[in-house]
């Protein structure tokens, strides 16, 4: 006879789990006790349950495995929730285990009781409240299967204390059979034929790579097709890294903060081939004005995404890797004429014009007694400097805000699963714990966190985890003493009235770093940037680099609410 907790650990081991990010508590005592006996599973103690969920997320995203986190009932469980929602929005495979008060007390508002299955319902792919210890092997097996198959996502298992404690005979459960859940993997043959016809006919085809390309591991197939057709590729934020940034066919990120050339190509193409993406409003801008000349092919594993936000001329449901192979088999057409250089040339012309105007304006400002910015670091320069020092296998995580967009626009990503950012939910405080998970998955690879002064202060507790586990993260803080993205929105939508966005007083970030046994560095002037950055990357342990930036810089181009992707505003139009 074995306890439920021991059976749980056995089941986790047989799923190949090697790491759990957790935080203990009364209702999870038995589980932690059993976990400690496992030779296979390493238990990483975080500093806040939200960190556990984000770390499991980061671990899953870099490794492609299912991330696992564990917390106690009540506040432990609710603290996980932002992390569960983050994983749900980005379709990240995770299993979340929570302790629960004993079955007999469920529903009595007992100490540290919350209805976590109820709370997590709208933000998880599925959840379970285990009522009988005998069900554990089946439930764990199903949870892992559901988390990683089809469209991946988080699955929560809530285990009452008595279920974890009671003794039963362990019976392995091997075959998952869910009659209501059978993901469809192969594309419908007729639809594939239609897709091939549209591609053959198209003059200006454009691929758009979403996060699905990475989770289906379809990067090679995408590259093959893009090269065969000479069709350029734009990416959503979740799709970054699916095609090397410097590949001649890669146009970078599209969307309301996308690159001008990616957005203009979207508006100019006559066939938009959406791969594993969901037409988020941050991708499309005004959907009425999205890709107006294009027929849209939408390929996704989730039927419910087809036609949800944007009409698809030809939908194709299934596993992206399988479907792209199906298309490759049927496609017999020659290279298209390169159509996007024209778009790029036009974008370059516009940008040169804007630059000229800006220079004129800048001179006028200087003469009017404006501040001299020549000495100060421009955020884009940090990204350029990073591109120089980062090896291709480096993993970059970000938080959320302006620094995230600068990174997404400018980083020279060369491999999938190297850019880890909260795309759908936009969760501040994600960067550091996600990097914890990434570093645990790959102890030998450099893991860099790009964060802001606001986000850093949300993710900061996990520095304690880095200290304890000797995780040599390299954390770069873009410090403009401002919640810059909100400030930017206030510039555009509140006539420049800035409310609750400036940090008038801030801690000394270098000292915070030192308090956690880390190297703390600060860059004030442009001239120091490359040296300090090199120093950061050379340091063998945890290190924090604060870069002081002017608060004036906004992220451009930007598509305002209700506008199409080709109606971007740039620096020149800023309300000051």
């Amino acid at each position, binding site marked *: 006879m074995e306890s439920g907790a021991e059976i749980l650990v056995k089941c986790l081991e047989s799923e190949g789990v090697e790491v759990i990010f957790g935080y203990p508590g009364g209702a999870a005592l038995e589980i932690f006790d059993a976990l400690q006996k496992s030779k296979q599973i390493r238990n990483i103690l975080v500093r806040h349950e939200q960190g556990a969920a984000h770390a499991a997320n980061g671990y899953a995203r870099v490794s492609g495995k299912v991330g696992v986190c564990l917390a106690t009932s009540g506040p432990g469980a609710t603290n996980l929730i932002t992390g569960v929602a983050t994983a749900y929005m980005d379709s990240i495979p995770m299993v979340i285990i929570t302790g629960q008060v004993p079955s007999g007390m469920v529903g009595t508002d007992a100490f540290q009781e919350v209805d976590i*299955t*109820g709370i997590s*319902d*709208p933000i998880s*792919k*599925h959840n379970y*409240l285990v009522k009988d210890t005998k069900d554990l092997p089946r439930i764990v097996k199903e949870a892992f299967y*559901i988390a990683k198959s089809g469209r991946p996502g988080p699955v929560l298992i809530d285990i009452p204390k008595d279920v974890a404690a009671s003794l039963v005979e362990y019976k392995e459960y091997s075959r998952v059979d*869910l*009659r*209501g*859940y059978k993901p469809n993997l192969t594309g419908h043959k007729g639809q594939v034929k239609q897709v091939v016809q549209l591609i053959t006919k198209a003059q200006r085809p454009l691929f758009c790579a979403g996060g699905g390309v990475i989770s289906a591991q379809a990067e090679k197939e995408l590259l093959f097709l893009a090269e065969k057709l000479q069709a350029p590729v734009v990416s959503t934020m979740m799709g970054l890294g699916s095609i090397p940034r410097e590949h001649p066919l890669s146009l970078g990120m599209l969307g309301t903060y996308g690159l001008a050339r990616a957005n203009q190509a979207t508006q100019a193409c006559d066939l938009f081939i959406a791969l594993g993406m969901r037409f988020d409003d941050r991708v499309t801008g005004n959907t009425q004005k999205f890709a107006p000349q294009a027929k849209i092919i939408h390929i996704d594993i*989730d*039927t*419910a995404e*087809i*036609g*949800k936000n944007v009409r698809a001329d030809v939908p194709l449901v299934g596993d992206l890797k399988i479907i792209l192979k199906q298309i490759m088999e049927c496609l017999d057409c020659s290279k298209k004429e390169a159509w996007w250089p024209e778009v790029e040339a036009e974008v370059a012309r516009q940008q040169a014009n804007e630059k000229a105007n800006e220079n004129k304006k800048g001179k006028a400002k200087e003469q009017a007694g404006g501040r001299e910015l020549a000495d100060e670091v421009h955020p884009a320069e940090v990204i350029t400097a990073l591109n120089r020092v980062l090896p291709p296998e480096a993993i970059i995580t970000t938080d959320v805000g302006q620094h995230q967009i600068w990174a997404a626009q400018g980083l020279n990503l060369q491999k999938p699963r190297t850019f880890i950012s909260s795309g759908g939910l936009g969760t501040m405080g994600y960067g550091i714990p996600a990097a914890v998970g990434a570093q645990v998955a790959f102890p030998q690879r450099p893991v860099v966190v790009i964060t802001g002064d606001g986000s850093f202060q949300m993710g900061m507790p996990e520095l304690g985890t880095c200290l304890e586990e000797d995780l040599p993260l390299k954390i770069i803080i873009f410090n403009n003493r401002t919640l810059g993205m909100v400030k930017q929105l206030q510039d555009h939508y509140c006539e420049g009235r800035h409310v609750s966005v400036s940090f008038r007083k801030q801690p000394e970030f270098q000292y915070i770093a030192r308090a956690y046994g880390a190297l703390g560095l600060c860059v004030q002037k442009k001239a120091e940037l490359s040296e300090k950055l090199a120093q950061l990357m050379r340091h063998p342990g945890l290190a924090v680099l604060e870069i002081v930036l002017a608060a004036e810089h906004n992220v451009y181009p930007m598509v305002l609410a209700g506008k199409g992707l080709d109606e971007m505003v740039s620096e020149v139009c800023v309300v000051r």
Partner: protein
Amino acid sequence: MRHTLAVLVENRPGVLSHVAGLFARRGYNIESLVVGETEDKTVSRITLVVEGDERVIEQVSKQLNKQIEVIKVNDITNEETVDRQMLLLKVTADQAARQEILQLMEIFRCRVVDIGRRSLIIEATGDEGKLEAVTQSLRPFGIKELVRTGKVAMVRGPK
């Protein structure tokens, strides 16, 4: 337009709340919902009446299908179906009115299931139109209480 969806789900606790919660959070309106066991004890059938255009109903069906515990979703709006709702109605009925009410109920083929000193309870089964007519005919006498089930429906023929 009003749609009737027949949804087969696992007969387990929590499933109904998953389905109902889905409607609330995606902003769809349920007009009526009936749930009960089927010929297979492990399967329940939820009959839903939902208001919405084609796009909304398509999304509703897809989101329902996405739920792990949902086995099958059928839109039976345009099928030939038998559909029924039930109504229980307590109507004021003194000696003078009683006879008239009984005659009316005969016409509608309703049953009187309880007789009090000053009231009757009427049970009526039928489609929406019939139940509406029954209610209207009894209104002049004074309706004291009224409960109605949602709609259950079954496709005609061998399917």
